[in-house]
């Protein structure tokens, strides 16, 4: 995102904010969607984050940090959306995947197991995974973005990956057993 656009929006230029919102929204929605696994809630989280961006932009000291700052806002908006639904885990929908990308029963089952494993994680663990694997931030930047110690980010990532891997490997054993008996 261009620094000039951020600075103009900071000064209250609504048109600059509009351009900023269009430029940043795909990434922000992608983050919210992957944390919440629900397009409707992700929409609400995106809107909340964009509104907060407009309201709080003057408080952003370094316009170069806009991306990381906006990630933090959308993650917190996602936490909030997650907290609104008591039966949240029951509402999680599997991500719509491209059928062409599925190359067989093992992939389909593996994706399902990853989905189930992800469902069991807290929003805080999901956020670390999404920022690391989807946005591509190293752990130190994940920590900085979320405003948590690097050690905490690292341990959350470790725990989340370990949990998912356990689900993934259990699935692999299941597929092997299924193929053996088939």
């Amino acid at each position, binding site marked *: 995102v261009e620094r000039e656009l951020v600075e103009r929006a900071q000064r209250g230029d*609504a048109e600059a904010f*509009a351009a900023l919102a269009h430029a940043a929204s795909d990434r922000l929605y992608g983050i919210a969607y992957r944390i919440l696994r629900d397009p409707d809630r992700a929409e609400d989280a995106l809107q909340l984050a964009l509104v907060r961006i*407009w309201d709080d932009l003057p408080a952003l000291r370094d316009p170069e940090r806009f991306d990381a700052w906006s990630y933090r806002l959308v993650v917190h908006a996602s936490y909030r959306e997650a907290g609104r639904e008591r039966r949240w885990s029951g509402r999680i929908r599997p991500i719509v995947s491209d059928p062409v990308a599925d190359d067989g029963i093992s992939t389909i089952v593996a994706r399902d197991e990853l989905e189930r494993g992800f469902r069991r994680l807290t929003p805080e663990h999901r956020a670390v995974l999404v920022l690391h694997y989807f946005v591509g931030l190293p752990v130190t930047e994940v920590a900085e973005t979320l405003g948590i110690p690097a050690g905490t980010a690292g341990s959350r990532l470790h725990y989340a990956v370990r949990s998912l891997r356990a689900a993934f490997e259990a699935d692999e054993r299941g597929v092997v057993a299924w193929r053996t008996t088939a």
Partner: protein
Amino acid sequence: VTREREFEQALADWIEDGFLEAPDRPIRAAIAHARAHPRRRFSFVGLGRALMDRIQMSEVKQQGAHRGWLVAVGVTAVVGALVIGLIGTGVVSFGGGPNELPAVGAPAGTATPAAAAATPTPDEALAKMFTMFDAPYSPAQIAALYAPDAVLHDTIANETSTGLAEIQAKLSYLSTLNFHSTRTSATIRQGDFVAFFETHGEPGYDEPGLVVVQLKDGKIVNQWVYGAP
């Protein structure tokens, strides 16, 4: 190590998969919010706080302690005059009058018998408006209540939201603040107008207000929000 890499790759692929393009609605709503709100916290509450700050400051300074009371008395007078004016012009009456108002969300012309107006009961759809902040924000609910060209007049902050998109943006923003609104009086009805007193605000900052709503064809076409003493 190979299996670990395979797993990490599978995880990365899985997380990458899915929607990558943001829908327009939240972007449009946020932009409408930005245009309607020149970057400040919510108006009803903000103005109320500013008023209270002014009163408290006056009290601290002691020299102008009476000024705070003058402001409060002034607000009382304005709201009182408004209510009296509405009564005088027949816009509002306190019970007993014919209840000819069509229900919100219902077709026009569904008049309720006059006998039912003795103790006015808000219709179900209008009652929902009072509790909309208690539930997750719903654009569909707002769209059901307001006409597409409705106007929300926030007289406290001197802000006007014109059209459904701006109203949705404003109410959506309030929802993000955990804003709440509680009706504190009976609903007063006359003709196409409904009025009631309420308290509203963010958690811990309840403030009294007066809301007047004009309906047309079962939907809100104008809504005025006033501060109340």
